[in-house]
Structures are given as structure tokens and as C-alpha cells.
């Protein structure tokens, strides 16, 4: 019965996050007649970058990418991502003044003569330098991706952000169009008149139609959000694309005039009108696309982000409990960590349901899942040993992997469409999840290794019993890591054999996985042969963290090989920092002092 109580208490921990944390954007200005209903705007379903998603996701992922955060201050007022996106699409002259473009690179700041007082700049400030930036980006583009230097990558990144921004600006209407609604209403009338009076189609009319066709083709090319839902044979269309189809005789979809009107009402701040316009649209949408609203809610609740402080709370309580040797406080710490884990689990499961896929389809997913697996394993350790160590390992791994996930989310939408090579739920479930669990267990073993060397060498407070029991812990986890890594790697080989025609191809990602297997085999054989004792095994477990980090992220930074779809760029600094931090723990472990427990006996 005790575990039911624990679980119930842990669930209580989660409630503040689950209930109160839904971050509804605060009521903001420019209201005339009604309360702004930002949630309704966020719930609009659109097709963007190959995936059907709520407008809220487009706003958040674009803004995270460009700005590095989900809200910013303008004239003392905090603006959230959706507000920003609506301004970009509907009030571009205003949005151009928002300082959102994050420029880290000192060389680019110098190139654009921006000065150093700020890291973020507005489109208006960058606009006069666009020609220069474009020519620099063009030069960088000629260099092979993995040969580009930091400056070239930064130039391309900034240029990409500007392109993204400009394509968002034209997503509903041409940015400078004052009343797009009227324009398309006239166009629709004209086309219908031509259809009724086919004799009127003369040279002039054809010329006129060709001009219009070019105009809408250009609009389509300059925009990125597909607002118009599919109809018959036509897929999701950008508004320009749709108007082009209307010119060719396709029926008009109500979405095109509707969003033109929303744009105008937004410019006027007429929320009553917006709410009215969206009501019917969202109702039909909710019936056809039930997951969209749920995803917007998922974004607003930010469970995976909010689990982080709970993990930290758990860590603090556990550390205090261990220092004061209070049994009950330790139990409280465990309950808090289980609570954080529950939030983590709900976030993970919800995300899976939204994407309809196993949890790991990209690096972001792997970070969330590695943390989840590691926390689960560490909590099992806690259940076995009840000494607080599992709890510390759980909070360390859970917190740090969620931090990594948060930083990975800065590169765009974290739920991506799955490429053709990866499109197999069977292998995504078996191979990817098992390999990822292998990473999890490596990190748990490494975390315990770190705790061990700190206690054994610096604090010198290890009793004979905990010395041995930590040894057993790490030994057991490494056995599991070995099993997971081997099975996962092999399943990957089988998948490769099925789809590429070779079981093993010495591709960087495969080699990374092989390194983990070989490292585990080396640790276990070294332990059996007596080459290392308990502390030696701990040091090897910490070094295992370095091997795992290389396999997980390092090989992706090389940007070569068949697996390079997981490619990532800027994290190089962090992986080096991580390696150095681990080597420091190794150095502590190598410090020539005799185990504390032996000393206390003598």
C-alpha cells in the first residue's frame, strides 16, 4: 500500500504544472470591442514545413529559431510568440521594428556595423545590409557544409532566419497590401464573370490574367504557411497558390477570403470580428483535425520545460536529506522526483500521440527519451537501495537531458515529418528506442560514478557497505547498458540490411554505437580480470559518458554518412565542455588516496 501513497503524493506534485501552468498569453493591448482570444488564433490548423500543425507551433518554433526565446520585450511590454507572428503577418511595418534577430557572432556584428550594445536587432535595422549579407551567404553556400567555418555557418543561419521572416510576412497577403480582402473579392468576381461570359476572353483579358498569374505565383513563392485546406485533388495550398488555382478555374475555398478578413480585423484591433470569423472555421476544423487543438494546448502547457524546476527541487531536497541524514525528508525527495518523472512521462506520451510515432524521430526526441529512460532506471535503483543515490542520479540525468532538449528546440519545430529512409515505425520503435535506452543506462552509470568519486575522494564519507553497494549498482547498470547497446546496434544493422543492402557499413553513427558496445565490453572484462577495482570501474563509467556523448552528438557534428539527417551544428562548444567536465571527475577519481572506508577501519 505504501507505493500507492507514494504515487498519489507524487501526483499531487504534478498538479500545479498540469492545471495552473497553462500559459495563456496575458490580455494585451489593441482591443477595441472584445477580449482578444489568442487561443483561438493559435488553434488554427496550417500546413507548414511539410507538417500539419497549429499556428501556435509555427509561431513558437519560428520565433525560437530567430530570437532564441518565446517572448520578448517591446516598449516595456512583453510580447509572446503568437502575438509576434500575427504582427509579422498582419502589421509588418510594426513587426519590422521588433528587435528579434539574435546575432551572436562578433564577425557578423562587425560586418553589419551593428555595435555591441545589444545581441538582438530588428528587421528595419538589418534591412539596409541585406545586399551585403546575401552576397556573403552566397559565398558561404559554395563551400561544402562540413567545411564551412563558424562565420560562414553564422552568416547562412542569419540569412536563413531573414528568409524565414520574410516568407512569414507574406503568408496571408503581400506585405504591403492594404486591403487584400477587397483584392481577392474583386478577383473572384472577375473570374466568375469570365466563366459566365466566355466570349469576353480576348487578348486583353488573357494579358490581364497572365499578369495576375505572375502576381500570385510570386506571392506563393514568397510565403511559407499553407492556410488553405485541401479540396478534391488539391493539397494544402498557400494563399497565393490558391488564388492562382482560382484563376485556372478551381472553386474558391472560404479560407482564403476568411484569413484576408482576419488580417484586416487584426490591423483594426477588431477582436469581436476575429472571434466571430474563427468560430465556425475552428468548429469544422476540430471535427476533421482533432489533434491540432491538442497540440496548441501541449505547447502552452510546456510540460517538458516545466518538469525541469521540479527535478531541481527534488535534487535539493534529496541533498539536504542526505546531509542531515533525515529518512523522511529523503522520502519526500523521492516523491518530488517521481512527480517530476510523471510530468516528464505525460509530456513524452502526449508528444507521441500528437505525432503518431514512437518517441524518438530526431535528436530532440532522443534527448527527452534518454532522460526519461535514465530517470526511470535511476528510480528503480532508488527502490532497491533506498539511499538517495538513485534519486540524485535521476534528477541529474532528467534535468540535464531536458535542458539539452530545450536547446535543441531552438533549431525549429521539434516534431518533424519523417524522411523516407526512417519511415518505419517498427524499426523506429525497436532499434532506435533500444539504442537510446543504452545511452540512458550509460548516463546513469556515469552519474553514479561521479557521485562515487566525489564521496570517496573529496567528502570521504563512504561506509564500507555503500562502497560495495555502489560498485554493485554500477556493475549491474553497465551489464544492462551492454545488453541494450548491443541489441540496439544489431537491430540497426538488420534495418540497414533491409533497406540499404548491407548489415554493417562503418558509417559514423554505426561506429558510435559500436564504440559504446566495445567500451562496455572493455569495462566488464577489465573488472573480471581484476585489472580495475571498484574505483577504476567508476572512472571507466565516467569515461563512458564521454563515449556516449560522442556517439549521441559528436558523430552528428561530422556531418557525413548515411545517418547525417540528424545533423547539428552549434553544439560543438557544449560537447567539448561536457568532455572536460567529465575528465575533471576522472582526474578526481585518479587522485591517489586510499578508499575512505579502509582508512576509517585502520
Amino acid at each position: 500500500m505504501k507505493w500507492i501513497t507514494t504515487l498519489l503524493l507524487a501526483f499531487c506534485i504534478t498538479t500545479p504544472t498540469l492545471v495552473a501552468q497553462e500559459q495563456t498569453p496575458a490580455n494585451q493591448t489593441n482591443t477595441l470591442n472584445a477580449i482578444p482570444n489568442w487561443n483561438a488564433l493559435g488553434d488554427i490548423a496550417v500546413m507548414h514545413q511539410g507538417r500539419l500543425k497549429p499556428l501556435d507551433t509555427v509561431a513558437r518554433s519560428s520565433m525560437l529559431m530567430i530570437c532564441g526565446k518565446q517572448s520578448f520585450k517591446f516598449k516595456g511590454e512583453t510580447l509572446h510568440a503568437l502575438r509576434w507572428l500575427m504582427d509579422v503577418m498582419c502589421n509588418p511595418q510594426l513587426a519590422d521594428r521588433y528587435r528579434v534577430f539574435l546575432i551572436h557572432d562578433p564577425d557578423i556584428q562587425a560586418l553589419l556595423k551593428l555595435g555591441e550594445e545589444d545581441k538582438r536587432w530588428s528587421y528595419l535595422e538589418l534591412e539596409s545590409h541585406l545586399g551585403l549579407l546575401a552576397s556573403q551567404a552566397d559565398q558561404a553556400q559554395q563551400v561544402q557544409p562540413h567545411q564551412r567555418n563558424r562565420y560562414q555557418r553564422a552568416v547562412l543561419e542569419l540569412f536563413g532566419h531573414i528568409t524565414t521572416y520574410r516568407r512569414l510576412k507574406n503568408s496571408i497577403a503581400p506585405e504591403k497590401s492594404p486591403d487584400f480582402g477587397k483584392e481577392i473579392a474583386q478577383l473572384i468576381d472577375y473570374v466568375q464573370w469570365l466563366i459566365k461570359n466566355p466570349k469576353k476572353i480576348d487578348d486583353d483579358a488573357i494579358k490581364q490574367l497572365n499578369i495576375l498569374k505572375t502576381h500570385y505565383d510570386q506571392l506563393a513563392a514568397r510565403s511559407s504557411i499553407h492556410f488553405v485546406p485541401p479540396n478534391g485533388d488539391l493539397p494544402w495550398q498557400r494563399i497565393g497558390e490558391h488564388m492562382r488555382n482560382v484563376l485556372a478555374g478551381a472553386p474558391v475555398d472560404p479560407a482564403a477570403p476568411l484569413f484576408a478578413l482576419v488580417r484586416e480585423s487584426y490591423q483594426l484591433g477588431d477582436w469581436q470580428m476575429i472571434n466571430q470569423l474563427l468560430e465556425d472555421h475552428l468548429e469544422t476544423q476540430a471535427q476533421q483535425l482533432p489533434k491540432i487543438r491538442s497540440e496548441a494546448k501541449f505547447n502552452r502547457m510546456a510540460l517538458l520545460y516545466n518538469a525541469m524546476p521540479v527535478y531541481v527541487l527534488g535534487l535539493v531536497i534529496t541533498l539536504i536529506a542526505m546531509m542531515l541524514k533525515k529518512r523522511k525528508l529523503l522520502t519526500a525527495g523521492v516523491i518530488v522526483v517521481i512527480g517530476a518523472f510523471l510530468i516528464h512521462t505525460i509530456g513524452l506520451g502526449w508528444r507521441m500521440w500528437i505525432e503518431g510515432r514512437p518517441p524518438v524521430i530526431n535528436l530532440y526526441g532522443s534527448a527527452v527519451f534518454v532522460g526519461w529512460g535514465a530517470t526511470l532506471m535511476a528510480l528503480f535503483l532508488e527502490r532497491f537501495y533506498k539511499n538517495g543515490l538513485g534519486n540524485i542520479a535521476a534528477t541529474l540525468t532528467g534535468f540535464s537531458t531536458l535542458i539539452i532538449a530545450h536547446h535543441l528546440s531552438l533549431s525549429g519545430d521539434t516534431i518533424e515529418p519523417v524522411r523516407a529512409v526512417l519511415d518505419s515505425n517498427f524499426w523506429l520503435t525497436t532499434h532506435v528506442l533500444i539504442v537510446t535506452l543504452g545511452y540512458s543506462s550509460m548516463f546513469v552509470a556515469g552519474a553514479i560514478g561521479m557521485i562515487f568519486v566525489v564521496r570517496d575522494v573529496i567528502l570521504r564519507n563512504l561506509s564500507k557497505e555503500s562502497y560495495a553497494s555502489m560498485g554493485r549498482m554500477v556493475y549491474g547498470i553497465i551489464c544492462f547498458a551492454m545488453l541494450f547497446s548491443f541489441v540496439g546496434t544489431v537491430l540497426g544493422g538488420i534495418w540497414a540490411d533491409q533497406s540499404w543492402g548491407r548489415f554493417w557499413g562503418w558509417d559514423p553513427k554505426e561506429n558510435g554505437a559500436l564504440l559504446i558496445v566495445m567500451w562496455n565490453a572493455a569495462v566488464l572484462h577489465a573488472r573480471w580480470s581484476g585489472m580495475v577495482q571498484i574505483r577504476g570501474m567508476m572512472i571507466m563509467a565516467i569515461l563512458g559518458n564521454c563515449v556516449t556523448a560522442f556517439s549521441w552528438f559528436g558523430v552528428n557534428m561530422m556531418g557525413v554518412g548515411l545517418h547525417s539527417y540528424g545533423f547539428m551544428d552549434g553544439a560543438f562548444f557544449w560537447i567539448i565542455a561536457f568532455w572536460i567536465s567529465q575528465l575533471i571527475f576522472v582526474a578526481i577519481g585518479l587522485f591517489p588516496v586510499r578508499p575512505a572506508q579502509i582508512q576509517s577501519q585502520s
Partner: protein
Amino acid sequence: MKKILKKLASLRITVVVLLAGMLLVLAGTLAQTHMPIREAQSIYFQSFFVWLPMQNGMQIPILPGGYTLGFIMLGNLTCAYLTTFKWTFKRSGVLVMHAGIVMLLVGQLFTDLLTIESQMVLNHGDAKNYSEALYDYELVLIDPSGEKTNTVYSIPKTKLITGNMIADNRLPVAISVKEFLPNAELTMESNSIPTQGFGMQVKAVKAPMVQGDNQRNLHCVYIDLIHAGKSLGTWLLSTAFIKPDAVIIGDKTYLMQLRHRRYMLPMTIQLQEFEHKRFTGTNTPMAFSSRVRLIDPTQNEDRIITISMNQPLRYDGKTFYQAGFANEDKTTILQVVLNPVAILPYIACIMVTLGMGFHFVSHFTKFKKQQTKRDTEVKA
């Protein structure tokens, strides 16, 4: 003797070999940033030593290669089983696991030695009854006078060396290789060296060899044909030429061509349609697949098949994978793999997994019992 075997069975050797292996894998991985994967494979993994070229042209071995480490590991394991291993039921998991590892290593060696990879490049509507090697080439003389089949005389690449004289009773003609160019840049300009054939209009300038995964060398060769003691002239042939040259030898007309080595298939494969779907508004491939018609008169088969990513066609002991596409999605590229030992890793992996699983689970149960005992002791 037993003493030596025992020394060779040492777990220390195992650990050292594993660590050396990690170093090798790491080096072979990092090398791929500046060389194609195929080259890295042959330098690091399919070799006995990794050689470092010195400035004076000497080469010194810096790391043991994949084959050396594989053999040491096999030897170490064998010695362990001959001497120190305890043959009990409890250890049976370890035995099965190690047997699986041996099978994996041996399987990889045989895969290296026996696998034949080739490609089938099909344009829309094309039908072919052969696949082509990616890197291997041959000089062929074709006698098209047969009723149902042609007689093909094939000269392998090993004979196509500058200065080589190829004379064989089975050949209708003797061939003198004047110059072989491993890679060349070709331009449409008149060329005075050849006296016969299409090559008279093509200038070939020697170019450095390329090694990239997606780069191809254009091999070229100048040859003299000698019949009945008389030279018939000089030809320039290249793997870039699409059509063969017609050559009259004696009273017969032959077709002559330098081409990628062909592997004949018992069946014909015709590309009916290639489909490439992308995610709306992006270039990310969602799916690509080839609808092909397979005609095999020997088996009396004629059917339509779709080959797609993760769904290859298995036929005639070979596997046909959807590997790529070209030419604005009008051409499909199928990878054809013949690997007679493809089943070995599957068996090996099942063995290792079961062996390791059995061993660790039995350990874990033992550990859990002990832990419960320790717990009760603490409480008491």
C-alpha cells in the same frame, strides 16, 4: 604449451584489443571527414595495419587494422575456451554469446570477401537484364551474329595495363594496350592518336583519380587491334562512350566497347514508373518507389513489383534496393547486392542476445536475492 595458451587466453589481452579496437573505430570514423567512406573502410577496417605515409615515401604502421584485431580476438577467445573456461550450465550463456561474436566477426570477413555490389540505372521505360559494377570495368568484343544470343569476349580490368599485349587463342584478335588512363576529361575535339572509331572525335586529357562516394572516374584506353600479324589501327575507348564501335575483323563485324563490368541476370527488369513524393512545401523526401516489370522466361514469370525504401525485391539470390534517383525523377537507381552470407549476422545476433540476456538475467536474480537478504539483515 598449456602455459603459453593460458597466457594467450588472458583477459588483459581482451581488454587491450577492445581498447585498440575503439581507437581504430574512432580513427576510422574521424577519417571520414576528409575521405570517402569506402576508402576509410579499406584503410582502417579491411586491412592488417593502418599505414601512415611519411614525407620520404616510406610508410609506417601506426595502428593494427581491423583484420589483425579480429584475428587476435578470435585467437584470444579460442585459447580461453581451451584453457580457463569452466564448462558448466551456468556459463552456457557466455558460451553462446561468444560463439555469436565469433560468427559476427567471421561473417563480416566473408561479407567483405564475397559480397558483390552493383547498380541498375533505369530510365523510364528502360528494360535491362544485367546490373553494372560501380568501380569494376571490362573491355568487350561482341559477336552479334548469333541467332538468339550474342557471343561476348570480355577482357577484365586487370589486363588493361599500359604496354600489355593480350593474345589468346580464344580471342578473334590480339589487343595491344597502348595507354590506359584511369580518369580523363573528355571534350569533343578531333584527336590524332586514334585512327579508327568514334574516339577520333574525342580528346582525352589525363585527370587525377577521384574517390568520392558519388564521383565516378571516366576510364579511357588506347588500343591497337592486331589480326593475322597486321595492325587494324588504333582506337580510343572510354566508359563514357554510350555506343560501341563497330570493328571488322577478318570477314566478321564485331562491336567493341569499354564499359562498366556487367553481371548478367536471368530476368529482365523494366522501369514502368518512378514515384517521388515530398512533404508539402519542402524538399524532404516522404517516399520514393519504382514500379517495375519483372520478366523471367526461365521461370515463366511476368509480373509487376514495387520496390521502395525499406521494401527491396529479392530474386535470384540477389536483393534489389531502391537506392536513389536522378534526371529529375525520371531515372531510378537500384542497388543490387549479392551476399551469400547475409544470414550469418542474423543468427549471430540472436545467439549473442540470448546468451547475454540469459547470463545477465541469471546474475540479476541472484543479486536480487542477496539484496533482499541484505535488506532483512539491516532491518534485523
